[in-house]
C-alpha cells in the first residue's frame, strides 16, 4: 500500500504583505477562500494566521472566529483539519496567544518548543510557563499540538515535556528549516533533525518546510525521507526564482504532483486525522 503524505497549507503567516505578492490572502474572507482552494487541490491541513486591518500579524480571536465562520458557512463541504497558530504576533501576551484555541477548539494548534532571536531583530519568546500551560490545556481541550522545531534543541525540549506529562505521545513535529537563527535548510540537517526526533521521541510523526532557497530541497527531501510537507505563502511568496506565486493553490498542486510522482498518495483530511490521531 502506498504511503499517504499530508500536505499542510500555510496560506498567509504573519509577515508577507500585498507589496511582496498581491496574491497573499490577508482578510478573513481571502484566507477562507484560499483554504478552500488549497483543500480542493489536496491540502489536508490548514495552518492559519490572521492579519489585522493594516495587514500585520495578529492573535485577535475575533479574526480567527470570523475566518472559521466563513469557512463553515460558505464552504460546508470543506473538511480540512484546522491548525491555528499560537505565534502570530511576537508582541501578544501568553493569554491572548491561546485564547482563540480555548474558544474555537481546533483539531490542532502550533506549539513552538523553545525561544529564539527572531531575524536578528526581536525575541520570539516561548517561556517554560507558556509551554507548560499550552501543553496541559491542549490535552484538556483535545487539541493536538504541532511541535514547531527550529533547531534540534527544541526537539530535546519536547522530549522533556513528554517525560513530564505536559505533552502526550505520539508527538507530531513541524521541522522549520532555513529560518534565520534556526537550523539551516539542507537535507543533511533535516536527516539530523529526524534522527534526533526518532532518538528522543520515538513513534513521532513529522512534517517539514523550508523557507526561501531551501524550499524545494526540503519539499523533495521530506517526501523522500517519509515525512509530510508544508507549503504556502507564509514561508515563500515566490513560486520559483524571480516568479511570484499566483496562489497558494499553486504550491499545493506542485506538492501533490511530487508526492504522486514519488509513488505516494496525497492524504485526505480523514487520512491525516488517522495518521496524527486527531479527534474529529
Amino acid at each position: 500500500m502506498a504511503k499517504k503524505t499530508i500536505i499542510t497549507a500555510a496560506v498567509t503567516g504573519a509577515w508577507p504583505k500585498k507589496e511582496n505578492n498581491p496574491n497573499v490572502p490577508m482578510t478573513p474572507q481571502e484566507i477562507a477562500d484560499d483554504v478552500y482552494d488549497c483543500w480542493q487541490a489536496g491540502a489536508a491541513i490548514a495552518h492559519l494566521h490572521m492579519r489585522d486591518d493594516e495587514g500585520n500579524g495578529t492573535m485577535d480571536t475575533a479574526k480567527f472566529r470570523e475566518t472559521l465562520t466563513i469557512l463553515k458557512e460558505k464552504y460546508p463541504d470543506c473538511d480540512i483539519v484546522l491548525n491555528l497558530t499560537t505565534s502570530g504576533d511576537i508582541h501578544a501576551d501568553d493569554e491572548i496567544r491561546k485564547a482563540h484555541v480555548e474558544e474555537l477548539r481546533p483539531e490542532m494548534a502550533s506549539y513552538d518548543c523553545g525561544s529564539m532571536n527572531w531575524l536578528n531583530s526581536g525575541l520570539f519568546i516561548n517561556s517554560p510557563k507558556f509551554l507548560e500551560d499550552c501543553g496541559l490545556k491542549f490535552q484538556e481541550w483535545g487539541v493536538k499540538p504541532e511541535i514547531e522545531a527550529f533547531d534540534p534543541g527544541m526537539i530535546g525540549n519536547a522530549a522533556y515535556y513528554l517525560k513530564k506529562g505536559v505533552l502526550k505521545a505520539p508527538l507530531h513535529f513541524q521541522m522549520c528549516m532555513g529560518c534565520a537563527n534556526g537550523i539551516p535548510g539542507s537535507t543533511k540537517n533535516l536527516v539530523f533533525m529526524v534522527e534526533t526526533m526518532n532518538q528522543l521521541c520515538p513513534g513521532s510523526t513529522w512534517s517539514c518546510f523550508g523557507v526561501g532557497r531551501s524550499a524545494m530541497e526540503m519539499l523533495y527531501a521530506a517526501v523522500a525521507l517519509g515525512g509530510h510537507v508544508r507549503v504556502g505563502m507564509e514561508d515563500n511568496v515566490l513560486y520559483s526564482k524571480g516568479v511570484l506565486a499566483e496562489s497558494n493553490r499553486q504550491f499545493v498542486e506542485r506538492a501533490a504532483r511530487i508526492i504522486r510522482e514519488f509513488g505516494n498518495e496525497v492524504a485526505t483530511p480523514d487520512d491525516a486525522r488517522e495518521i496524527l490521531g486527531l479527534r474529529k
Partner: protein
Amino acid sequence: MSWGPQFMYYHCDQCGKKFKYETALIPVVGDAFGRCPVCGCMGTYEQDGARIPNDLEYEEIDE
C-alpha cells in the same frame, strides 16, 4: 510561524544596482556575499530582515 527568508539588502555605489542576499547563502558563497552582481565590488549594506515592502526592487542573488 515563519517570517520567510531573511535577507540583507544592498546597493552598489558604482552602478547604483539594488540587490539582496538571503542570509542562508553566507556559508555557500563566502566572501562573495554582499558583492554587486554587475561590478563585483562590495555593496553598501542598507538593512536586513524579512521581505521589506519594496523587496521586489532588489535583485535576489542566489549563487
